[in-house]
């Protein structure tokens, strides 16, 4: 454990830590461009220069390992002058087209200019002109004029997805980042280079010109694209989600996220069910509700005998707990099966083949309640004649045709899928962007999803657990009723009933979630700056 002195303060840091991280421990932020905690060190931008006693020249803090007895000055006159000079060089050919640059507002060049330079340009010669709109791949475009050649993007592709698709071409002021002949940047993790890029050189074609970043409201949530549960920041404005970017959680996704997950917000707005249906036709709320109550009253009367319940692993823990408790209390003989999204492509990095976010959570809850949950293929053979279906996604048409052929069926979900349209009664629930609740990822981490700022429940929909209470569905004739006031109270009951959750509170899950069974365990290490932008 080397002991050193930074800006007059003595500190002890773990062996091998560099000076940027060491300075962060005492609250000193050394400005950087090319350095990123999760990538190898290139030390090519020289923004992080610091003065170290007994060293003849300034040293890059990102590449200098803290050693015993070092005396480091991060803001001596020499350092301040050097930083301003670095900024001036970086800006020599920079086009300064912030007004049309999507990075403006979260650009490290803007931030570092304001913090460490602030002078006007002395450049009198013509700025180098380079290509401004190079489409590198299906999702990423590149503006060579804005690039500061930090090589973060190149290092990311080499080191994280280990798919060398980007390289530096040319020399001097003519060098550019590019792809290799005939090989576009089409890696499933390609959009990570967009946040990684400290400036606006790499842009997302999905977000291009959609909104200025400062007008977006940011919500810390979790991606529901697969069972990995990458931590996200969802950016929304006036009822619409504009983009999802990864949020740092070293126990789940480091600072990365897959492209499929990022773009999953589109699917949530598409094909949205806006009104309840009976027999596939629009129905007033009252009609649909009384039809739904009728279906449930029968189920209760028959104690679930001959009934099938399809539960989608896209439900939150709260939704699953509420409905499984209902099934246990009122339809004990019903058979419960998983439906949900079909399997997709998985890999070693983040993407998982199971595209449902909460299978682990629902399994834990069902186990604790003593309800066996079969896979959907069991459901096909058992052919339930009367169905309650929670969540509209189905892995294939077989479940939909069971629902559509059933004598009685109640479907609760958010999208106009075949099962939803063919149900006797279909009621609305919200999507992951509208609901509060929690998911358990495949590694058993309980993580909170939060409703996005400004995004309201579409039509007459409710959170999946609240469909039951707010609409009074638990009041079907003869049914045992429940009394939860809000998502926290459902979670509190859940924590009492299910062992892995005991000791947890929904609001106590924090930004990084908690592992099942860890109860009141402490939050993740505090120097992890979860809410800071990923580029930083």
């Amino acid at each position: 454990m080397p002991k050193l002195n930074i800006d007059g303060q003595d500190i002890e840091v773990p062996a091998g830590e560099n000076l940027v991280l060491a300075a962060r421990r005492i609250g000193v932020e050394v400005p950087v461009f090319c350095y990123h905690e999760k990538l190898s060190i290139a030390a090519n931008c020289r923004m992080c220069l610091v003065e170290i006693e007994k060293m003849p020249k300034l040293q890059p803090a990102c590449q200098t390992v803290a050693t015993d007895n070092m005396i480091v000055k991060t803001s001596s006159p020499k350092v301040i002058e050097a930083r301003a000079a670095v900024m001036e060089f970086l800006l020599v050919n920079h086009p300064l087209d912030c007004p049309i640059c999507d990075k403006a507002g979260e650009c490290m060049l803007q931030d570092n200019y304001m913090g460490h330079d602030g002078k006007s340009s002395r450049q009198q010669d013509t700025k180098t002109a380079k290509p401004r709109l190079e489409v590198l791949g299906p999702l990423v475009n590149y503006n060579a004029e804005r690039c500061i050649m930090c090589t973060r993007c190149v290092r990311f592709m080499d080191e994280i997805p280990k798919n060398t698709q980007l390289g530096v071409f040319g020399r001097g002021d003519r060098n550019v980042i590019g792809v290799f002949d005939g090989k576009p940047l089409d890696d499933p993790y390609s959009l990570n280079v967009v946040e990684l890029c400290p400036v606006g050189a790499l842009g997302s074609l999905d977000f291009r010109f959609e909104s200025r970043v400062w007008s977006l409201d940011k919500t810390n949530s979790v991606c529901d694209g697969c069972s990995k549960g990458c931590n996200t920041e969802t950016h929304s404005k006036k009822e619409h989600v504009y983009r999802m970017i990864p949020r740092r959680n070293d126990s789940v996704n480091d600072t990365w996220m897959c492209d499929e997950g990022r773009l999953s917000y589109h699917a949530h707005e598409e094909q949205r069910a806006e009104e309840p249906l009976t027999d596939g036709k629009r129905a007033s709320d009252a009609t649909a509700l009384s039809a739904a109550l009728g279906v449930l009253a029968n189920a209760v009367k028959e104690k679930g005998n001959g009934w099938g319940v399809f539960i989608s692993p896209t439900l939150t823990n709260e939704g699953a707990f509420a409905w499984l408790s209902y099934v246990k209390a009122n339809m004990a003989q019903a058979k419960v099966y998983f439906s949900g999204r079909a399997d997709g492509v998985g890999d070693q990095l983040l993407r998982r083949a199971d595209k449902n976010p909460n299978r682990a959570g629902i399994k834990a809850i069902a186990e604790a309640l003593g309800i066996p949950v079969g896979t959907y293929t069991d459901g096909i053979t058992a052919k339930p004649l009367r169905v309650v279906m929670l969540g509209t996604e189905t892995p294939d048409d077989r479940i939909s045709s069971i629902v559509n052929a059933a004598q009685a069926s109640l479907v609760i979900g958010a999208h106009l899928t075949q099962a939803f349209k063919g149900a006797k009664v279909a009621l609305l629930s919200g999507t992951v962007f509208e609901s509060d609740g929690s998911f358990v990822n495949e590694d058993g981490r309980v993580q909170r999803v939060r409703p996005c700022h400004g995004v309201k429940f579409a039509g007459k929909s409710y959170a999946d657990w609240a469909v039951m209470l707010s609409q009074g569905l638990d009041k079907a004739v003869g049914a045992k009723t429940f009394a939860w006031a809000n998502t926290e109270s459902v979670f509190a009951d859940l924590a009492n009933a299910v062992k892995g959750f005991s000791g947890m509170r929904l609001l106590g899950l924090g930004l990084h979630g908690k592992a099942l069974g860890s109860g009141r365990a402490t939050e993740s290490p505090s120097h992890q700056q979860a809410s800071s932008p990923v580029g930083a």
Partner: protein
Amino acid sequence: MGKIIKVRAQDAEVGAYEKAYLPEITKGIGITLRHVVKNLFGGDEKYTRTVSYPEEKVEYPVRFRGAHRLTPREDGAPRCVACFMCSTACPARCINIVAEESDDPNIEKRPKVFEIDELKCIFCGMCVEACPEDAIRMDTGEHVKPFTNRADAVYGKVDLLSMLGRTEKNGEQPVYRGAHEHRARQAPQHSPEGTLPVQDEQPEDAH
């Protein structure tokens, strides 16, 4: 103008002369008559002016901040690059912009929708000050036209572009200053073999 001035009782000294009423009222009517006669028959001494609005208009002072307009490029397209600086600066939140890709790769970004709700606007001029492109001005010298329908108070891109500034109205050539003047140069074309740019000629007209 019916202006009400409240006078506290003790301020007015009402003596017997005032209480007699007639002498004071005659004096008042006398003043009024003097002005009427002067303005009807006074020739050069006339000083009030009646304008037959709207056929005839009084010109507003030069510093008057009236209706906004969007300034045009040479080809008539708006100079605006949809940077949202104006809508960010606007304290009344009355500017609504939707951006889109421009056909011209040297412009890149342009407004698809640009609306100002003149009903919400407080005519503070912040938008004009914020604009890096000199694309929005309040130099029309006109007030917002009366309307009977709220929707008519929302000026769209076409309305805003159709208005002229004082300079144009006086037949002079307007001078606009904006950041994108620096981008007059052409971006190099992509080489057909790959993504390496062909860069042998430096553009001459850049700053």
